[in-house]
């Protein structure tokens, strides 16, 4: 592929001559696949530029030389079988020359075997959840840009940081030089997980698991965004990956595992009402507030919870809709028994709802069956 790369550069395509990172062309490739893609692109652009110059050269020559105004007389030929056969065959051959290297890259891209680390990325409306399957912990990664920077409705808004819209509360951390297999799935609608510098983009589809892989070559922070329209905050769910050394990764994993253990809920614990409500609020704000709003007022197709029939009706129906979803409401099976018990208890005792009742984790466990 080196020869093709040279050709690509030689063609002085505009995208390359200006190559300022991340503005005129691809982000600087950080993986083998990303480099292959960039080379393929350069090679195709080279071919295109050559064809473009040849074809448009002929056309503009004709436009300038064969005009009626300059007295040119039309010659009435209208067919030439050999020419027509030729300009069918030559492009076909050119295509083969493009398809061959491309096919090799497709096969490499699809080869997710022998990964050393497997991470599951789950798309939520509107943030990413990451689970380190080999290490038994996971966390949510959300947009960290403050609302004041985003909203300019009344004039300029707050000044925007360098990484405006590309910063998260907690990035994905991966070790350098390690084949990482990314599994993608989604909780509600289709999202797409992509990091241009790694040459990966994989849709995250509810109910299905798909995979892709990368092997980062450099320590640093790399950024992408959700690339499938996923509703209101589609533009606000960035992906940030931090590549660290293998040793740093080990230390980090250790720390996360300990944290996870400390934070884990005991499924047999019996909770008190106010404890449960407090816990429920964190669950609500993390998962439900995006649609039903922090004050339970709802909006658009998402019904209000304040004063709703469900939140003020029988417990079983309330639990049912949270567990199984309905219409625009996704099923929240993925939350733990404690989280579901907590969030339902919170909903029934907030926003002006005063049911005064509560669920325990074991009730949820029973209802799941």
């Amino acid at each position: 592929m080196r020869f093709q790369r040279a050709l690509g550069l030689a063609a002085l395509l505009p995208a390359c001559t200006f190559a300022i990172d991340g503005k005129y062309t691809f982000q600087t490739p950080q993986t083998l696949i990303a480099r292959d893609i960039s080379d393929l692109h350069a090679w195709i652009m080279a071919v295109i530029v050559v064809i473009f110059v040849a074809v448009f050269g002929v056309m503009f020559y004709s436009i300038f030389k064969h005009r009626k105004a300059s007295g040119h007389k039309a010659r009435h030929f209208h067919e030439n079988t050999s020419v027509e056969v030729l300009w069918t065959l030559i492009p076909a051959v050119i295509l083969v020359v493009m398809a061959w290297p491309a096919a090799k890259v497709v096969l490499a891209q699809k080869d997710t075997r022998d990964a050393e680390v497997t991470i599951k990325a789950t798309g939520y409306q509107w943030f990413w959840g990451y689970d380190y399957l080999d290490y038994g912990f996971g966390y949510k990664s959300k947009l960290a840009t403050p609302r004041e920077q985003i909203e300019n409705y009344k004039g300029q808004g707050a000044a925007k940081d360098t990484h405006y819209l590309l910063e998260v509360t907690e990035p994905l951390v991966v070790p350098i030089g390690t084949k990482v297999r990314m599994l993608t799935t989604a909780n509600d609608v289709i999202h797409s997980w992509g990091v241009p510098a790694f040459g990966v983009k994989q849709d995250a589809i509810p109910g299905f698991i798909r995979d892709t892989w990368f092997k980062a070559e450099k320590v640093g922070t790399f950024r992408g965004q959700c690339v499938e329209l996923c509703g209101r905050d589609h533009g606000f769910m960035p992906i940030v990956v931090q590549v660290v050394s293998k040793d740093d990764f080990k230390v980090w994993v250790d720390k996360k595992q300990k944290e996870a253990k400390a934070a884990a809920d005991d499924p047999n614990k019996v909770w008190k009402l106010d404890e449960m409500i407090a816990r429920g609020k964190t669950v609500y704000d993390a998962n439900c507030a995006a649609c039903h709003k922090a004050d339970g007022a709802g909006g658009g197709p998402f019904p209000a919870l304040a004063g709703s029939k469900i939140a003020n009706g029988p417990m079983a129906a309330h639990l049912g809709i949270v567990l199984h979803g309905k219409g625009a409401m996704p099923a929240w099976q993925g939350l733990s028994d404690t989280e579901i018990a907590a969030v339902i208890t919170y909903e029934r005792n907030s926003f002006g709802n005063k049911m005064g009742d509560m669920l325990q984790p074991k009730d949820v466990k029973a209802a799941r069956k």
Partner: protein
Amino acid sequence: MTAATDTLNPTQGDHAGEAHGHDDHGHHAATGWRRWVYATNHKDIGTLYLWFSFSMFILGGTMALGIRAELFTPGLQFWQPEFFNQLTTLHGIIMVFGAIMPAFTGLANWMLPLMLGAPDMAFARMNNWSFWLLPPSALLLVISLFVPGGAAAGGWTLYPPLSLQFGMGMDLAIFSVHLLGLSSIMGSINIIVTILNMRSPGMTLMKMPMFAWTSLVTAYLLIAVAPVLAGAVTMLLTDRHFGTHFFKAVGGGDPVLFQHIFWFFGHPEVYIMALPAFGIVSQIIPTFARKPLFGYHSMVYATASIAILSFMVWAHHMFSVGMPATAQLFFMFMTMLIAVPTGVKVFNWIATMWQGAMSFETPMLFAVGFVCLFTVGGFSGLVLSIAPVDTQMHDTYYVVAHFHYVLVAGALFSLFGAVYYWLPKWTGYMYSEKMGKFHFWWSMVWFNVTFFPMHFLGLAGMPRRIPDYPLQFTDFNALASVGAFCFGLGQLFFLYNVIHTIRGGVGKAPANPWEGAHTLEWEVPSPAPHHTWETPPSQELVEKGLKEQAL
């Protein structure tokens, strides 16, 4: 049927070959709104289609400007993100189904009978229906903006499960799509039967104008895929309201199934918007090069092969959903293959210009502009066809740039060319060349200012359908927004020029204002009278024209 509708249906009499004088029956008695509401005359219906399409173009264009205004600088300034998504969705649906497709059907209505030497379209009454389904469906889309929850906001592709989340705006969009599909099918039946049955003597299939060929193939494509779209959105509807789980994973459905069905419709659909453009350009270039179309036969074969291939490439819109490598390779190769017949077409147009005696009236400018920019769109399509490269480009602004090069510079520019080309025939007056040329150059410049930078935005990774963006995308977005507003402004000059022409333009038009035009529509007076070819053109007349076209 009342006597009034009977007289409004003159073609039946004409078909039977009865002498059917103009004045005694008083067809022109239908005036005012009746003339248009009850219209069965192909010219009236063509006119209706074209005005409808132009109003939709303005409406969809206004929405595009709404999008571009929001994207002028980073941050949210005008719209809430929900409304931004509604704007993108309606802009896409309205431009595709409201502006481009009806414009081509309108042209086919106006021009096919004239070009083929037929007195009218085959089914005049159905023709009325196929038009009058359009305004209500447009109305449904507009109303949907004002219902609780607002209009559909899932993009014109309406992917579930997202599209299962919206309120009744989505249902209105679904009904609207149903009506549009019905209208397209009826329009297509009419086009096919007219072309197959009503050509004048001596005009075999392989001797009819290219515009008739591309209309014929397009109509077949539509009949094949409109029901597929109707099926897909009906499944959405039942998933939304009747407890089915076609696309809901919780009930065992598959969200990706929708994408397969949608794009099995959607890819041929993009050729539905491109093939008639090829036909128009194949009429215009020979006229102004004063030379017969080069390679008529290979043009026909290329049109047919593009149509057939268009059914085998749908999954190139889905390279990132996660297909097996073999499927990825199959769709990549098939997609690349389309470059071959498309290339043949471009080469043929250039060979038609080669050694011609070219002049550059406005229709020719738009035709040449079309060839240039459509080629750019074709090249970016080739880049996207390479599956690994698509990994970087998919759902970014590169795609937005690509499809606007084929849809705006392709479909829309060819339509402008067609309007200027046939305006003298429609109105009986010549348009102002000066204003026409100004419209062309203005559109050409600002179109490129708007959409060329989007290639860079896409390469650098800016996702499409976002109301706000990271800071490195600021400059190109500002540039594109300026371009868009200027481009939009230019279309008002176009409207002005058309109205100016209807009101007399720069003088009366002869029957054939173009030295190099030899198809049959130029044999009838300008403006084309309400009834034409009541008796088919004589074989000699037909053959004279064909000879000039080297057919």
